[in-house]
């Protein structure tokens, strides 16, 4: 192995059905700034199947100096044990200094599994990453205790320094067609395939399944909507804004929305650019799931709703009047735009 390939910053790309997920590019923008500060190179690591050369080159255009790729039909779906063995072997061979992954269902499973195998430290759900002056250690900042505190953590004596980062918490770098880099194709060592776990397939339930983790805008409804039919107001506004549909625990428990939409302590944590809470009072359990949103909007007729206090924009009014008005205005805008 060439010496310059050691102490790199690595980011873990993700694919589904042969398509790279957006988080792969988001991580590269995080990794790029760390690698530049450290004066090292940035490598995107992909384990999967069916990702085209063109897409691999896109990783280079969007920040990577190298791409290490292990592809095989056996790696079509993420299986923790198999991916874990491959990643562990890559780490032991190439000795990166930093390894970042997205805080997705894959990243949050693979990273802790792999960190123990090394063993090394891992920090979950980081919102900020920086390099410590002098030591070059990775400073990893994450919200804890329901977003009430921010803890800054480092892994001084173990390598790689591993962290997961929430999807959508950074923007991908613009593609730069002049960037050049190496794509290193590493053949799958079949002995690493662990056959104990088998993926059988997928089942899709709702039509409005745009991922809460990936959406720029989340529109969420709560008890203030009063009944199941009214939840359609949330779906229709979300559809208009290309937003994901969220729900408070109350709304899910009443059957107005299914569990995958639940935001909060016992549901998902979201960090969209805009979170819109409609008829949501703002129980602390719900707030824990939205605190890292860039902008928070609350629409609620109750002036004392806790969510209003946290919101950047609090609209004290009846959602059944305000939302139709928003939609009417959006229609108007669209008509103007399209003549």
């Amino acid at each position, binding site marked *: 192995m060439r010496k310059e390939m050691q102490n790199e910053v690595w980011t873990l790309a993700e694919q589904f059905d042969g398509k790279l997920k957006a988080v792969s590019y988001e991580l590269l923008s995080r990794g790029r700034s760390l690698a530049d500060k450290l004066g090292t190179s940035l490598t995107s690591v992909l384990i999967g199947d069916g990702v085209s050369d063109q897409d691999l080159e896109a990783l280079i255009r969007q920040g990577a100096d190298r791409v290490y790729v292990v592809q095989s039909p056996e790696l079509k779906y993420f299986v923790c044990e198999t991916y874990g063995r491959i990643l562990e072997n890559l780490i032991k061979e190439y000795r990166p200094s930093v390894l970042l992954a997205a805080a997705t269902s894959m990243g949050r*499973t693979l990273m802790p599994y792999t960190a123990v*195998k090394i063993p090394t430290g891992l920090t979950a759900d980081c919102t900020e990453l920086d390099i410590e002056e002098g030591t070059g250690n990775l400073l990893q900042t994450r919200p804890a205790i329901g977003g009430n505190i921010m803890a800054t953590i480092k892994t001084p004596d173990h390598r790689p320094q591993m962290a997961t980062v929430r999807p959508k918490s950074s923007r991908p770098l613009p593609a730069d067609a002049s960037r050049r880099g190496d794509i290193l194709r590493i053949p799958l060592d079949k002995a690493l395939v662990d056959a104990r*776990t088998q993926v059988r397939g997928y089942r899709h339930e709702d039509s409005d399944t745009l991922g809460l983790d990936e959406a720029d805008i989340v529109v969420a409804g709560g008890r203030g909507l009063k009944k199941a039919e009214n939840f359609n107001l949330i779906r229709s506004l979300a559809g208009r804004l290309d937003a994901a549909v969220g729900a408070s625990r109350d709304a899910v428990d009443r059957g107005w929305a299914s569990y995958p939409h639940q935001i909060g302590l016992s549901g998902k944590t979201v960090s969209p650019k805009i979170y819109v809470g409609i008829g949501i009072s703002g129980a602390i359990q719900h707030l824990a799931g939205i605190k890292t949103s860039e902008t928070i909007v609350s629409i609620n007729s109750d002036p004392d709703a806790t969510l209003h206090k946290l919101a950047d924009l609090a609209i004290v009014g009846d959602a059944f009047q305000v939302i139709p008005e928003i939609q009417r205005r959006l229609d108007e805008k669209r008509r103007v735009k399209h003549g």
Partner: protein
Amino acid sequence: MNIVVPIKQVPESSNVKMDPETGTVIRKGIETVVNPLDLYALEASLRLREQHGGTVTVISMGPPQATRALKEAVAMGCDAAALLSDRRVGGSDTCATSYALAQMIKTVGKYDVIICGERATDGDTAQVGPGIASWLDVPAVTYVSKIEEIEDGRVLMERLVEEGYQQISTSIPCLVTVVKEVATPRLPTLKGKIRSMELNIPVYSADDIALDPKYIGLKGSPTKVVRIDTPKVTRGGRTIAAQDDVSIEAAADEFIDLIEKKGLLQ
């Protein structure tokens, strides 16, 4: 079917208060509860036992008072419980914690399925479950929303992932982390409560379960906390009253402006 459920005692979430001076959580006088997400793991375990027989053993790591959380699990119907309590494991990060719990699991006996909550509501990392699986070298299946059946030594499940529900199976022994959807937790029964009061819960020390000092406690934790900050809660928000036609229109305009400014208007 022998099932082990690692649980955590956490501060009751609605009561968490921060010390504005030190930026740390005020632990004094705070009510503690069983991590709410562990209740789903307990319920899923009890249901598996009802279908397949066997035992459910609940374990935890923490101060001696964590026995209370274990008793609650016994009151729900768990058969046995054990606590790891030792100052030397204090300050463990997720790597060290998962090591200690893996050793506990080996100590309490033969296991088929280990069921964990998705994450603890205080630390919020979701790392300890997969970490335990890694130390034990058993498959880790996370975010399980439904345990369908167990046949021929395999567990058939669905897990909630970004693409929808993934149908997956794995072989026993394995570790599973579950989400809320898996089952609605039962309440403790009177009979269970009486049993939990009478049950003697063994408390192990680090030596009892042969923990290697180099992997436990603050010293054995690869991650170190550098500092704790309390983020400012005030976001400098604007409040608009939308009571009549004019103010409703103004509110709608402001909302659309906000989205437009972020470049998110389609």
